């Protein structure tokens, strides 16, 4: 037995309510992140990622409260991302009970935030989220660039080089989302997943595009990812976490059963 590959359900939360809906049998309140996190915990999820999409400042207080409640009831690692701008934001989320904090745009605006927060809180709790889009070179050589604002705004930054730079600055993990695949259900963009997992020593979570259980297997075996993140296939009850793990185990991947 060796280290298990992780399955991470992701909750998108707006002002303390799960959006994109959840359709579980037996859930009383499909919008309650605490109840849904507890359900994933019972199903054997290896971690939970909580993506805060709350736009308003006032709504952020609700987020902190929700994180506190999840941490009180769920005894697996919890990552919180979305709207993290400063060392103070990171401290607030860690104190609320998050185990890791994921930094995206703020790392691009201020790469030293990653170094400062890793020195302060330890690399183990600093996840750098990368939203990558394929922008091939003129000669057709594959290349991926980082985009912000939900994939609308190019930054000119090469995704693979950025991942290496973030690892050097103390990131403990990379959360890689393919903006070409996110929401498509066509599977992970395996090219960029493999390029980044090969380029860095830290663990990489593949995200964006999962539509079936073979996609999870591909992310691990072909993409080389250490963990796979998915939202909708779990939320709508298409597949449960135990089904996903059984499928991966049958394909020779070590999982926590």
């Amino acid at each position: 037995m060796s280290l298990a590959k992780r399955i991470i359900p992701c909750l998108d939360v707006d002002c303390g309510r799960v959006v994109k809906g959840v359709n579980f049998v037996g859930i009383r309140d499909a919008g309650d992140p605490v109840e849904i996190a507890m359900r994933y915990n019972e199903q054997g999820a290896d971690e939970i990622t909580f993506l805060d999409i709350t736009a308003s400042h006032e709504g952020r207080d609700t987020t902190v409260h929700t994180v506190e409640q999840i941490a009180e009831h769920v005894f697996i690692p919890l990552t919180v991302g979305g709207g993290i701008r400063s060392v103070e934001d990171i401290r607030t989320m860690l104190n609320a009970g998050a185990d890791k904090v994921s930094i995206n745009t703020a790392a691009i605006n201020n790469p030293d935030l990653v170094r400062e927060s890793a020195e302060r809180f330890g690399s183990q709790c600093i996840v750098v989220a990368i939203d990558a889009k394929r922008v091939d070179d003129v000669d057709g050589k594959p290349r991926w660039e980082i985009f912000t604002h939900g994939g609308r705004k190019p930054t000119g930054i090469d995704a693979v080089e950025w991942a290496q730079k973030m690892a050097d600055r103390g990131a403990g993990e990379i959360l890689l989302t393919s903006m070409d695949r996110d929401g498509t259900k066509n599977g992970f963009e395996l090219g960029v997943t493999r390029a980044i997992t090969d380029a860095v020593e830290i663990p990489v979570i593949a995200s964006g595009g999962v539509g079936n259980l073979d996609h999870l297997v591909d992310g691990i075996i072909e993409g080389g990812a250490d963990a796979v993140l998915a939202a909708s296939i779990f939320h709508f009850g298409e597949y449960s976490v135990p089904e996903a793990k059984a499928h991966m185990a049958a394909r020779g991947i070590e999982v926590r059963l």
Partner: protein
Amino acid sequence: MSGLVAVIDYGMGNLHSVASALNHVGADEVVVTHDAELIRKADRVVFPGVGAIRDCMHEIRRLQCDELLTRALTEQGIPVLAICVGLQAMMSSSQENGGVDCLDIIPGEVRYFGNPLSDAEGNRLKVPHMGWNAVCQKRQHPLWRGIADMTRFYFVHSYYVHAEDRSLLAASVEYGVSADAALARDNLFAVQFHPEKSAGAGLQLLRNFIGWNGTC
């Protein structure tokens, strides 16, 4: 009866999860503190830790948590559970941050996993060692009650412990090297993994701890 469980707080990161997990498994009273008087009254002590070892050692010494810990282990003789960096801080020294002297409560070293690191088949292993790995129990102990050998627990660390006295080894974990996953000596049990983040198995270990009388 767990009595009063003191989670020693030396200001390094979030200890709420440890406290919530102890409450969840039915501890009578849990306090997160570095108050000497309160810890003196405690019936058992949890010594957690996250972050870089140099800063941890600095705060442990500044707040005199080293003395509190020694007193709990010897004079008070109460059950003590060390977790992650709490375990590492108890060793003689760590290679982290260019070499740091630790508390030397358990003779031994904290070593870097190495880079590159690979498994027996030559597959590259990432550092930190992050995720759920199988814990191989090396001896019987009250804290393993109800937990099967090779149960997976949640780990996150880049440095690993190697105790000099191999008879203290309560469990090991394989990750390119054979690392000490748990050490046990008298009323002390120290683990590298995070029981407070290890779902049912972790809660069972904490349940065992709050019911433990400190003998093996």
